[in-house]
């Protein structure tokens, strides 16, 4: 089923591109004057008519097969009601309808004749065909990956620009090859009509290739985003294949550009032979680009790399985090390699501009860049595993961290030490999981190590003993542990523009009311998380109850968490003064277990979480007791922050 879809889509895309290119070249060439050129025009027109019908037919097959895929049953493809539902009640179907409407109009326009002897009529006829074909082609972008991922119209516009460029350049190659061949078959010199067209196309093609490159890179940044996505997913592989095909195609194009002066110069020998050779090169280029269109069609039915789970293919990878491990002396080396690389690129630029001694300049440029890489890259090389860049399916929330803590205590603490920051360390051979190498590893790497073990360090594998979810829970716990053991301490004062400690998400269950998540407050209110216990917190809770109004107006929500799950928690806080902020009555143990990593012990503690979801200040009653004035001052400091930090991700990395 998918193969049929891919075939139909590929044929449809190719047909639309070829029709657009055909009319572009016809317009570029202008009304033909000699009979040989008129014959060429007729052949291109006749081919265009067939191609529009092919586009329509393959488009219908695409719709019908897609209906079957949407409904999940193959027989839906032949049911009119199902197809109509897919066509009219979905956005992609609507885009399909508009595009095929345009193609039908184009087909009708092409199949009916018309007197095009005057220049105005000729331009109107060819121009209209080009406009209809180009619109039908670029509207494909309306139901592309870029449209699905992004809310802003720019990725859509860039995608449409890419399609237009493809139509103009790729689609224009076959008629151009045909033109050069027809113009030079029976004459010693190719018709000037053809030579002029080739020169115009060459100029347009240069601009078009640059536009294609720019728009392609922009779309790749949106859909692929990272090197891991490029080399580790099907979508990325297809993009690499596209680029691989592009190289010989561009080389052929460059060769053609070099041959161009030979077509028309007065001293040139055998210009017709040159024209025929150029036609051959262009035909080869066209064949390569059509294969590339097939790959592009395949990319539209593949999950974009940013949403897939990349599988890293090699045993090493580069990691910028590793820079933090490098001692100061080597840091100096880092600086020098940048200088060397900079010099190298400067030399390269000079080499392109210079006329003499090019080889020497380019050679020394490469030596400098290579030298810079040799110094600068090795510290960044770390081990790589297939899951190094996998995205955890489990989000960073208190329940997962608490579960991870329990699993750690049962399976890992015997070698790696007890799971609280600031306590007893691990046995001699096992790594201290609070410290540098572990915090530097990616979540996917940790997953691999836990699943398969590290035989050379005598760590057993846990893939058979722990479920996948449990392993990810442990990783969430390790991240929380690492954050809590970070030498940068969060104190009782908010440090402006320094937000790094992500607050784990949790469910705020308040009696039988609909529960909220901590994450729901993002972008709206700050949260003062109060870990309290009665009777020692009673005075402070009364003060908070009285001050709640002022804090509320300043944009703070207070969330109180007693140590144990109990529906009586609200009543226990007392009636006077009335407590109006939420008190968590369910899931308390998980929340306390996770947040006590950041404030060890049992003392009353308060954590101020900013609007982006970062913990910015922590008070502990056995160190610096929180009081109304102190908390309010920090809240005001947060309110004064001009540039909010970027939103943290829901998953750890």
């Amino acid at each position, binding site marked *: 089923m998918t193969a049929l879809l891919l075939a139909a889509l590929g044929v449809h895309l190719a047909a639309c591109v070829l029709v657009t290119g055909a009319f572009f070249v016809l317009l570029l060439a202008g009304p033909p004057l000699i009979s040989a050129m008129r014959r060429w025009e007729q052949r291109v027109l006749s081919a265009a008519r067939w191609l529009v019908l092919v586009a329509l037919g393959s488009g219908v097959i695409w719709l019908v097969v897609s209906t079957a895929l949407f409904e999940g049953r193959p027989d839906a493809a032949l049911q009119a009601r199902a197809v109509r539902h897919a066509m009219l009640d979905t956005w*992609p179907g609507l885009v399909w309808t508009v595009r095929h409407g345009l193609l039908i109009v184009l087909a009708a326009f092409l199949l009916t004749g018309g007197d095009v002897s005057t220049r105005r009529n000729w331009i109107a006829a060819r121009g209209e065909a080009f406009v209809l074909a180009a619109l039908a082609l670029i509207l494909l972008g309306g139901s592309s990956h870029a449209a699905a991922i992004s809310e802003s119209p720019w990725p859509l516009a860039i995608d449409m620009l890419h399609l237009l460029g493809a139509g103009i350049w790729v689609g224009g190659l076959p008629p151009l090859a045909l033109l050069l061949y027809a113009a030079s078959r029976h004459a010693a010199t190719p018709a000037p009509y053809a030579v002029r067209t080739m020169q115009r196309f060459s100029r347009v093609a240069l601009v078009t290739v640059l536009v294609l490159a720019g728009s392609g890179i922009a779309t790749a940044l949106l859909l692929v985003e990272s090197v891991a996505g490029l080399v580790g997913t099907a*979508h990325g592989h297809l993009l690499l294949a596209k680029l691989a095909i592009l190289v010989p195609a561009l080389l052929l194009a460059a060769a053609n550009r070099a041959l161009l002066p030979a077509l028309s110069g007065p001293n040139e020998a055998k210009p017709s032979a040159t024209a025929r050779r150029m036609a051959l090169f262009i035909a080869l280029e066209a064949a390569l680009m059509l294969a590339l269109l097939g790959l592009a069609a395949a990319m539209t039915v593949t999950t974009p790399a940013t949403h897939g789970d990349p599988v890293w293919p090699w045993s090493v990878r580069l990691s910028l985090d590793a820079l933090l491990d490098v001692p100061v002396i080597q840091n100096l080396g880092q600086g020098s390699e940048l200088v060397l690389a900079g010099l190298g690129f400067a030399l390269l630029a000079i080499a392109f501009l210079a006329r003499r001694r090019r080889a020497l300049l380019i050679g020394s440029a490469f030596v400098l860049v290579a030298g810079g890489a040799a110094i600068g890259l090795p510290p960044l090389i770390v081990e790589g595993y297939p899951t190094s860049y996998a995205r955890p399916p489990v989000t960073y929330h208190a329940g997962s961290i608490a579960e991870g803590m329990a699993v750690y205590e049962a399976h890992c603490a015997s070698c790696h030490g007890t799971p609280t920051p600031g306590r007893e360390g691990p046995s001699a051979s096992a790594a201290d999981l609070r410290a540098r190498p572990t915090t530097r590893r990616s979540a996917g790497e940790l997953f691999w190590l836990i699943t398969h073990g590290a035989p050379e360090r005598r760590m057993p594998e846990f893939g058979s003993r722990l479920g996948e979810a449990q392993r990810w829970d442990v990783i969430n716990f390790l991240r929380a542990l690492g954050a809590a053991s970070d030498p940068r301490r969060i104190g009782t004062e908010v440090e402006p523009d320094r937000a790094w400690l992500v607050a784990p998400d949790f469910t705020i269950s308040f009696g039988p009311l609909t529960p909220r998540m901590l994450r729901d407050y993002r972008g709206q209110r700050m949260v003062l998380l109060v870990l309290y216990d009665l009777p020692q917190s009673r005075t402070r809770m009364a003060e908070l109850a009285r001050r709640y109004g002022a804090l509320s107006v300043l944009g703070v929500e207070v969330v109180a968490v007693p140590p144990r799950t109990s529906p009586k928690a609200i009543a226990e806080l007392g009636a006077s003064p009335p407590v109006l902020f939420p008190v968590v009555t369910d899931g308390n143990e998980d929340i306390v277990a996770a947040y006590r990593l950041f404030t060890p012990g049992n003392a009353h503690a308060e954590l101020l979480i900013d609007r982006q979801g970062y913990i910015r200040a922590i008070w502990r009653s056995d160190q610096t007791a929180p009081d109304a004035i102190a908390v309010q001052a920090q809240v005001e400091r947060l309110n004064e922050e001009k540039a909010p930090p970027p939103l943290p991700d829901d998953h750890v990395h």
Partner: protein
Amino acid sequence: MTRWLALSLASSVLSAGVALGHSGLQRAEPPVDSTLKRPPTEVKLYFTERLEPAYSTVRVEDGQGARVDRDDSRVDRSSPLLMRVTLPPLAPGTYTVIWRVLSVDWHITEGRFTFRVE
């Protein structure tokens, strides 16, 4: 080079179309593979691509495979990335959330995850 091209094309064709597992789902409430003390009243799924209401559904099944949700799955009006379905009060046990959604780029994704109610 040809072999590598063929292999990548083959793998892309095989993995094209329906993608199973976690792709597409950004996060969920109740969270994936979580344990809850109180049964949830609603399941919310946040996706990475804009959804097409006409062909997007969610259902929740209990341990025996019987359907337990209220059959009112819908794409949220204010956010095309969010899908929700409401639940009646659930007994303790393990429940499976099964989703099948169409995004506006012709792409059907399906997947499932479980959560437990104690």
